């Protein structure tokens, strides 16, 4: 046990020093890369704007300079940057190169791409146990050719413990194809604007294990007491840590309500998408105007987000259905179940669900509420504007107390004397 502790301390100190060096390195690298990027950007502009022969030489020069610089970046990275601590098994030895923060290049389309893999971050993510080759199946040798985009539906080299079969996200795709977000309609014809429908990566990155810090305050995500209970049977700390996180992360959504709303809003608040698909509301905007949305904005963890209402209870979030689908929980006759859920408003009657969550200040979408609000706006204006006018006139009058068209005061004083 003591040995383990010492080892932990040693790891901590070394990782700290590495991180300090890395930070400086990353900054220097960033500067270099920005200058490189700028150069290439200028070159692209020149290519786009002028096809004049005079510029050809400059272009060539720039290209040579760019190549020189990128070589330089790689050189400096190798020279200065110590690798981050590597404890995890990296069977393919990919980190031999990818551990360098400066590993980057300008892609064919002129976009800057970073190939650095921060091992610390990766090892805390949900895919920590998946080997690089598990997803990047097209890479067979090192150094490798430009890799293909990862297909999330590949069978990765992980065995699912309950069924002992190779793990895959294929079932997610099956759910997704039945949902409102499917690219094909029921007759397997492509939907209109199918390209707007989300792919895996539109919603998911490689998420980190999310700490349960809002009720376990010991250390974000880790309750030492719980870990102690794990250690009774399980010997390997690395396994305990990962398994603990695997379970606790799934006890709640992996993102905060605010984060989820922002994720959905990337498409559902986009005015172009909203008009193209004839949606009645900018969904996240109107959600943000309700108490739920405001509380989510104030980082309340227990407030319902998009998924809590739009996903049928106990089903995959990928099987989200349209509110026009009778199977959906958001369907007119089903939606009472959303609010009267045990965890939310158990005492509520079905009428509560008639509350318009996605009400917008719009005469077409919700006319009665619109005119009700107009009434209050008018009331506010009609009360405050005249009063402020009087206030302004009063201040102005006090500036010139002696000015007046009719002077009754002097007359009166004349009489009184």
């Amino acid at each position, binding site marked *: 046990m003591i040995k383990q502790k010492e080892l932990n301390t040693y790891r901590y100190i070394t990782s700290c020093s590495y991180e300090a060096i890395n930070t400086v390195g990353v900054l220097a690298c960033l500067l270099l890369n920005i200058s490189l990027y700028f150069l290439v950007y200028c070159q692209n502009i020149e290519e786009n704007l002028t096809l004049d022969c005079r510029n050809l030489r400059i272009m060539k020069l720039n290209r040579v300079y760019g190549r020189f610089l990128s070589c330089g970046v790689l050189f400096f990275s190798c020279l200065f940057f110590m690798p981050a601590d590597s404890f995890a098994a990296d069977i393919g030895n990919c980190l031999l190169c990818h551990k360098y923060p400066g590993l980057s290049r300008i892609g064919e389309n002129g976009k800057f791409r970073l190939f650095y893999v921060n091992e610390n971050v990766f090892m805390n993510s949900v895919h920590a146990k998946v080997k690089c080759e598990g997803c990047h199946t097209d890479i067979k040798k090192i150094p490798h050719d430009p890799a293909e985009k990862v297909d999330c539906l590949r069978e990765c080299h992980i065995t699912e413990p309950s069924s002992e079969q190779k793990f895959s996200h294929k079932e997610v795709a099956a759910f997704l194809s039945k949902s409102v977000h499917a690219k094909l309609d029921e007759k397997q014809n492509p939907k209109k604007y199918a390209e707007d429908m989300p792919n895996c990566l539109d919603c998911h990155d490689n998420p980190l294990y999310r700490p349960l810090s809002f009720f376990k305050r010991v250390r974000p995500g880790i309750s030492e007491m719980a870990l102690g209970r794990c250690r009774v049977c399980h010997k390997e700390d690395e396994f305990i840590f990962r398994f603990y996180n695997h379970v606790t992360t799934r006890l709640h959504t992996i993102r905060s309500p605010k984060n989820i709303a922002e994720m959905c809003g990337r498409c559902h608040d986009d005015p172009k998408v909203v008009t193209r698909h004839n949606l009645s509301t900018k969904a996240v905007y109107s959600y*943000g105007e*309700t*108490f739920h949305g*405001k*509380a989510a*904005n*104030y*980082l*309340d963890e227990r407030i319902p987000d998009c998924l809590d209402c739009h996903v049928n209870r106990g089903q995959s979030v990928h099987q989200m259905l349209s509110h026009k689908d009778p199977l959906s929980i958001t369907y007119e006759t089903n939606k009472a179940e959303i609010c009267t859920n045990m965890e939310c*408003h158990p*005492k*509520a*009657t079905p*009428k*509560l*669900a*008639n*509350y*318009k969550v996605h*009400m917008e200040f719009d005469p077409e979408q*919700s006319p*009665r*509420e619109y005119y*009700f*609000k107009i009434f*209050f*706006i008018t*009331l*506010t204006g009609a*009360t*405050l504007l005249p*009063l*402020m006018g*009087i*206030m302004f*006139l*009063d*201040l*102005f*009058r*006090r500036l*010139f*107390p*002696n*000015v*007046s*068209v*009719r*002077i*009754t*005061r*002097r007359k009166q*004083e*004349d009489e*009184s*004397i």
Partner: protein
Amino acid sequence: MIKVKKGKKYFFRSTVNQRIQHIILASCVIVLVLTGMPLKFHDASWAHYLYALFGGIKVAPIVHKTAGCILMLLFGYHLIYLASNIYIGQIAPLRKNKELSVARLLKLLATQPLMPNRKDVKDMIQLFKYLLFLTDRKPEGDEFTWKNKFDYWAPFWGIPVLGISGLIMWNKEFATKFLPGEIINYALIAHSDEALLAALFLFIWHWYNVHFKTSVFPMGTVFITGYISEKLMVEDHYEHYVKIMKKAGLEHEILPPHDPYGREPANEKAFPAELHTASAGQNFQTMNPKKGDRRND
């Protein structure tokens, strides 16, 4: 009705009970605005800091509801206070003499001091004349001017609107047993818009009139002491002032109406305190030479 302190006259304005009611009202409203506005303007940069000051999303709603409850209790108390005062002071004697009739009762209620009446319209017209430089005479207000009445009736309408809509949103499960679910949308609109109106009204208009206008700045003290200075009395409630002075038998000490030329008779700098205890005639005399000079120009 008149208190003399250090040679200056102060006129009665409100009882201790009323002042306590006002302080509770004021502090509740300020707390409600501070805990409510960050929710209305949740996207503003200041909102997060202000909300955190009241404990964030977990605590601030509780503070808001508590202050709201106190305010509603106060409103209930005020209604009882008002009704019992009118009954004991005015209706009960009528009943004793068996003079009570519906017409009499309605007339009595319509002539309560805080009821809007024809004089308010006249005062308002006079005020506009004065503000637009058409005349140099300020309206000679009664005990409660139209501004005071506005300040009274605005919360009188606002508290029920805000209270009921707030209660609906708070007890949404109970409210939607009887009402359709859309009522929460209406309640939210009414609550947040009426609150903004009330806050702007109070913090701009009301505070300007009682604290920030140049003759009171930096702070009015009537809401603490319950007595108003003679200078302000002359400026805003001249008709009432004359009435009170005559009632107290001080006709000869009555100051002339508010002087827009800035030569206020009750200006302490121009007149040493001793002069106030002397007769009004003398006051007038000391003022006259200046005015005489100007007239001769």
